[in-house]
């Protein structure tokens, strides 16, 4: 059989620097680097390289680099190399193409076309190093009515809310798709940061129940790992309807990732692919969602907010409005640029809408309908920096979910090969040899550092705007201006153009 696929990357070894310590050989799970004892030479099999930089990063002599190959086809703007190779691959296998993490395609990143305001003269900026700067956030439904008791105290309806010390949470990533050590890092970081991590749909490993006060548990269409103790362990329960990277389809965990621990945690057989259904088979319409929301509330005595997570799709505003009336306490919206452990490439690259537009239209719609206070809004799907967080909150979000930045902090190099299960960084793998490359003692601190740094930056930007409380930033679209956007885009985002 002819192998039509030529390597995308080339490993370049600087022989003057290389000391032949062979750490590259020992560390590459893809077996790219080979040492030939007889000839005393190191060489690289480029066809196996996924460009994850494990070898480059660990090489003590800095003798390695990975370059994009300049091997090429006749140039065509229409049939690019990627498209040609995809066709070869499908002609080879007859299968659906799989990929991981967020889409690499060049869709507009609206965050980068939005600018933030600052105070000058007419009102003062506030110095976060010298003045209090508040970013504590409550997530959940707000009471409608308020009454005074005889003693002057107030009475309201009570709805469970999550209390976040910073408006940044770790988005759902299941145990199975990522390693137990990665989960441990997220849980410990959430605990130290006073925020939450999300189990994803893979259940909760028994060793992680102790992080319950900072855990959100997910109930997805496969119901993997869902039982009474699991629901009780979460401070909130998230119903996953959809995911930004793959709207309309369910999760897929390959059988080779399902060893004894994952099998026990998910309550599924070892070695068999875990494929969650595309829809929830008890939710074929919005009224069914209401029943699941209230089933979960009944099961947990109305003590936990229910989050409904949906992928950003075309009709998002109407869908969100339906969810807000379904009894859900929080809507989590996941944009199309969001990451994933495995998704069909065509879906990842073509289905859904960017989170910025989805957020703006949902927030506007819920306000128009007078139900914005019924729900919290959390957005994810490519929140890449503290500036993105500030812009999301000013557009109307209560808090954000981050996942890819969290993985990057743990060492991920975005090689987009999670589905192979051979993550050299010990994150998206279940191989014990690889999993232990991620030491939670180190990993959790890196996550804490990242979110702490972002929080400081959020405060800096708020202070610049003369805002000292995150509530006053939420939905404050006057603090944003578009740059290089069409009038239609500005209208959807509900912001003016720079200079206006």
């Amino acid at each position, binding site marked *: 059989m002819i192998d039509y696929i030529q390597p995308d990357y080339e490993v370049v070894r600087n022989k003057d620097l290389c000391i032949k310590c062979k750490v590259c050989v020992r560390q590459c799970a893809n077996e790219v680097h080979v040492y030939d004892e007889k000839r005393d030479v190191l060489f690289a099999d480029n066809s196996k390289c996924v460009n994850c930089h494990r070898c480059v990063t660990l090489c003590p002599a800095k003798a390695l680099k990975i370059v994009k190959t300049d091997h090429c086809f006749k140039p065509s703007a229409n049939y690019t190399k990627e498209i040609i190779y995809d066709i070869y691959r499908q002609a080879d296998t007859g299968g659906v193409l799989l990929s991981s993490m967020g889409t690499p395609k060049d869709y507009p990143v609206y965050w980068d076309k939005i600018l933030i305001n600052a*105070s000058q003269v*007419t*009102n*003062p900026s*506030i110095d976060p190093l010298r*003045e*209090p700067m*508040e970013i*504590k956030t*409550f997530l959940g439904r*707000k*009471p409608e*009515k*308020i*009454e*005074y008791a005889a003693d002057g*105290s*107030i009475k*309201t309806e009570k709805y469970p*809310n999550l209390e976040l010390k910073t408006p940044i949470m770790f988005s759902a990533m299941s145990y199975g798709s990522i390693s137990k050590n990665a989960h441990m890092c997220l849980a410990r970081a959430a605990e130290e940061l006073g925020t939450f991590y999300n189990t994803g749909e893979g259940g909760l490993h028994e060793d992680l129940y102790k992080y319950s006060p900072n855990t959100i548990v997910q109930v997805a269409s496969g119901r993997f790992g869902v039982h009474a103790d699991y629901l009780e362990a979460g401070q909130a329960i998230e119903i996953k309807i959809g995911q930004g990277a793959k709207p309309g389809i369910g999760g897929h965990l390959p059988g080779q990732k399902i060893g004894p621990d994952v099998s026990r945690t998910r309550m599924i057989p070892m070695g068999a692919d875990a494929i969650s259904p595309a829809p929830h088979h008890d939710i074929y319409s919005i009224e069914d969602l209401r029943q699941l929301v209230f089933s979960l509330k009944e099961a947990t005595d109305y003590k936990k907010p229910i989050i409904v997570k949906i992928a950003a799709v075309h009709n998002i505003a109407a869908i969100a409005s339906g969810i807000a009336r379904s009894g859900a306490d929080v809507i989590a919206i996941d944009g199309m640029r969001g990451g994933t452990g495995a998704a069909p490439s065509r879906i990842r690259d073509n289905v859904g809408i960017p989170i910025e537009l989805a957020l703006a239209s949902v927030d506007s719609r819920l*306000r128009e309908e*007078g139900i*914005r*206070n019924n729900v919290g809004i959390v957005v994810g799907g490519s929140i890449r920096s503290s500036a993105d967080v500030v812009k999301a909150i000013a557009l*109307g979000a209560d808090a954000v979910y981050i996942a890819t930045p969290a993985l990057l902090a743990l060492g991920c190099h975005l090689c987009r090969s999670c589905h192979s299960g051979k993550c050299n960084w010990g994150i998206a793998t279940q191989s014990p040899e690889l999993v232990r490359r991620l030491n939670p003692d180190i990993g959790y601190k890196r996550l804490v550092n990242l979110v702490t740094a972002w929080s400081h930056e959020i405060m800096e930007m708020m202070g610049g*705007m*003369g*805002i*000292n*409380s995150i*509530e*006053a*930033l*939420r*939905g*404050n*679209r*006057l*603090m944003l201006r578009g740059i290089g956007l069409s009038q239609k885009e500005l209208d959807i985002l509900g912001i003016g153009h720079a200079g206006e």
Partner: protein
Amino acid sequence: MDEIEQRLAEVAEKNREGNVRIPSGCAICGYFSRKGKALPAVDAVDAMAYMHDRSNGLGGGFAGYGIYPDFADHYAFHIFYDNEKAREDAESFLKLRFDVSNMERIPTRKVYGISGAPLIWRYFGKLQPEIAAHTELDEEEYVCRSVIHINTKIKGAYVFSSGKNMGVFKGVGFPEDVGEYYRLGDYKGYCWTAHGRYPTNTPGWWGGAHPFNILNYTVVHNGEISSYDANRRFMEIYGYKCTLLTDTEVITYIIDYLHRKRGLKLPDVAKVIAPPFWSQIERMDAPEREKLTTLRNMYASLLITGPFSIILGYSGGMMALNDRLKLRSMVAAEKDDVTYISSEECAIRSICPDPDRTWSPAGGEPVIVELDNKEGGR
């Protein structure tokens, strides 16, 4: 009209309140007699003159309470008209809904420095009994919506005062000139608030001057709030339309919503607008902590950040409040039963040279005074 005038008119229309957001610096002042003594309006005019440099001649105004004892149970509508057509439209709208007992031009006098005045009329009316009986709304809400209707739907008409036994007098000019223009020497009331404006733009519209009023609430405000759009978009959920794009407008609506519609007590309204920091709340006793946590969470989007000092006038009371960092000056004083509030102490001393005490209210700590013999605030 020659070309330059036409261009100026176009610019004025483009920059009119409501078409553009105009930050302003300001002077404010107010005084209140707890015993309900009839205090002269001219004191407010004098006090504002002492703070002349805090205004720039582009807006001044006054609000008085207890000024129409003969029509105490009537709504007193003060209306600006751009032309007679607007007057006819508004009057026919009003007469369909209100029994109007008295209507007149508000008396004014020619003053150097005041020009471009609209037609200014005043009406005393009661809601027609059959409307009151059949509307689904309570009376105040009905009146409120009628005012909003005139202001947004009848071109060239603007109701700038709509409470009972109270009135707003405002215009474009320095506040002392505006006071002179409206012949405020003829008015007395138990409470007066005043405002001088320093806008960073050149609005020529009289409706944009302050105090801002809805029903019996008036607000004078000094500052530029950074939370504006968060506050505005929240209020719009509840049917308020912020057409003027000013801080004062949205603050007034917030107070109207919390105090009149939601029934919050004024000290609690102050705690929503300018709450203590979480670090302070955490140190409070459990009942207070729980209450403030609930209020902050419930009305998170009504928290106001950025510098402000406001004086709220309402039927039977007055409240002064600073932002929680106290980014704007505000001084209070007392002499016998009269409480004074001002941006600067000099203004108070100009009308009350020997106060019993003066103090600088802390950020977020409201100063509330109410009539002794009347249950004013809720």
